[in-house]
């Protein structure tokens, strides 16, 4: 059977795309991009993290364009990003410089700077709040203003004013005591997996970049599998912090000076685990992701450690972990299964028919 070129379908495709527009615009109320950005911020965070692009307005636009599909939104952002030049790389950013909004430790009760819950769903009742069906925007606005006013009054009564939100790392206490495993410092230039194919075995920088932009569900599932029994023992969250980081670049018109570009919000985790499989000592797994996403950052720290430990667990297999979790790649590959495979499938049917005919012929003779 030869290849057969087919045509047609363009009109159906155009009609399908038009139908998408109809689906996207169902109902009577317009969906403002600013509403998605401001009130669906955890979804926006997830899209930015998986796209590897911190751009809240554009992530919200992408979500509007694709009816809220995370995989489509990530695709749109990645595609747009590829049209832009990259003229700058930031100066190195340190998590210890974070303006902290949330900071907890499961390892220590008393930590310098205290445990700050910040905005978290950890302690809410998972009961549908039917009052939100009738939520009044004017009342909400008045409530927000009242809260702000009370806070301003509290600030005015604070003699030294508020801090800038910078607090020391929890694990620095253990570092100062020399209780943490020392990992050899990697001073090489970071690998950039957006510019080159992931090298195997991967350098540490490629591992962290790949995990940071991986699909949230994928790395959460792998991390769960790892701690449930396929990998290392139960980790302890030494510190989880969420907050904003200031991004600076070298100022091009003055040597040694820096220029402030803006701020990005990230979640950073240091997990405490065994230094060796089943052994003594304390090792650290590191996770850092765009936005407010505790689970993804914890999962990243678990997988980071699993890949360092190099055990027989599937989560210690760098190729398995790192090559199958990119939102765009995995959904793209799975999507291609919907494209016409007429020729290959017909060929398979022909083969089965031929075998059947041969078998029948053999029986008759």
């Amino acid at each position, binding site marked *: 059977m030869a290849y057969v070129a087919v045509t047609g379908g363009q009109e159906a495709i155009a009609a399908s795309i038009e139908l998408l527009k109809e689906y996207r615009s169902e109902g009577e109320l317009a969906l403002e991009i600013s509403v998605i950005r401001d009130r669906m911020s955890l979804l926006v965070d997830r899209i930015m993290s998986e796209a590897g692009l911190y751009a809240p307005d554009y992530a919200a636009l992408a979500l509007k364009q694709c009816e809220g599909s995370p995989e489509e939104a990530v695709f749109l952002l990645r595609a747009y990003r590829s049209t832009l030049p990259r003229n700058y790389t930031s100066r190195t950013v340190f998590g210890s410089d974070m303006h902290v909004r949330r900071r907890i430790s499961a390892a220590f009760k008393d930590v310098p700077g205290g445990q700050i819950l910040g905005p978290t769903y950890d302690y809410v009742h998972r009961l549908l709040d039917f009052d939100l069906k009738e939520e009044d925007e004017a009342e909400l606005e008045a409530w927000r203003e009242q809260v702000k006013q009370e806070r301003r009054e509290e600030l005015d009564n604070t003699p030294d004013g508020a801090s800038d939100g910078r607090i020391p790392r929890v694990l620095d206490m253990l570092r100062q005591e020399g209780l943490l495993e020392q990992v050899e410092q*990697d001073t090489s230039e970071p690998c950039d997996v957006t510019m080159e194919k992931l090298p195997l075995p991967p350098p540490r920088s490629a591992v962290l970049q790949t995990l940071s932009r991986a699909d949230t569900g994928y790395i959460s599932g792998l991390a769960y599998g790892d701690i449930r029994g396929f990998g290392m023992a139960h980790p302890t969250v030494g510190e989880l912090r969420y907050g904003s980081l200031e991004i600076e670049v070298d100022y091009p018109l003055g040597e040694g000076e820096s220029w402030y570009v803006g701020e990005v919000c990230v979640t950073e985790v240091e997990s405490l685990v065994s230094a060796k499989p089943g052994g003594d000592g304390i090792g650290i797994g590191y996770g850092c992701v765009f936005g407010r996403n505790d689970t993804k950052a914890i999962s990243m720290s678990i997988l980071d450690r699993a890949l360092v430990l190099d055990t027989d667990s599937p989560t210690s297999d760098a190729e398995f972990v790192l090559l199958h979790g990119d939102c765009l790649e995995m959904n793209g590959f799975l999507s291609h299964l919907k494209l016409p495979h007429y020729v290959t499938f017909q060929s398979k049917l022909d083969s089965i028919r031929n075998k059947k005919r041969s078998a029948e012929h053999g029986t008759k003779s």
Partner: protein
Amino acid sequence: MDENKKQFSKVLASCSTEQLKSLAAPVMERHKVEILRAPAKTLVMIRMRETVANSDFYLGETIAAEAMVSVDGHKGFALMMGDDMEKALAAAVIDAVWNGNLAEKAEIAPKLQLAHQSMVQKEHEETARYAKTQVNFHVMEESYDNEAPQKTAQKGGGAQ
């Protein structure tokens, strides 16, 4: 408003587009302004330090608007997160005023000083949003290990 370039650029970023345009407008009227790098979007890759091996990795990119100008031969630059080209252009003009120490600096500086105060106030308010979520632990049971047995403990009802 004569601090280092980082602080200066942070104050510019905290201003609204309209604020910066109104500060830059008189400069653009009175001086010869050349656009050296037209306002455009660019990616900025974020380089991050991790804590296990103290190595750097690329966290991800962000979008920023960049511009470079020359005001009477004095160069000015701006790179601001987002896609606000007008704001980046106005900021680059103001940066040129600072680099050239032009006369308009005296007019603009007090306004940027006010913007700086407003920015600091907002930063304090932002930090204060989270202060109340700090946990105060209360120890609910005390240990009597190092003390003489209490009456209740002798009866077997004390907390251990």
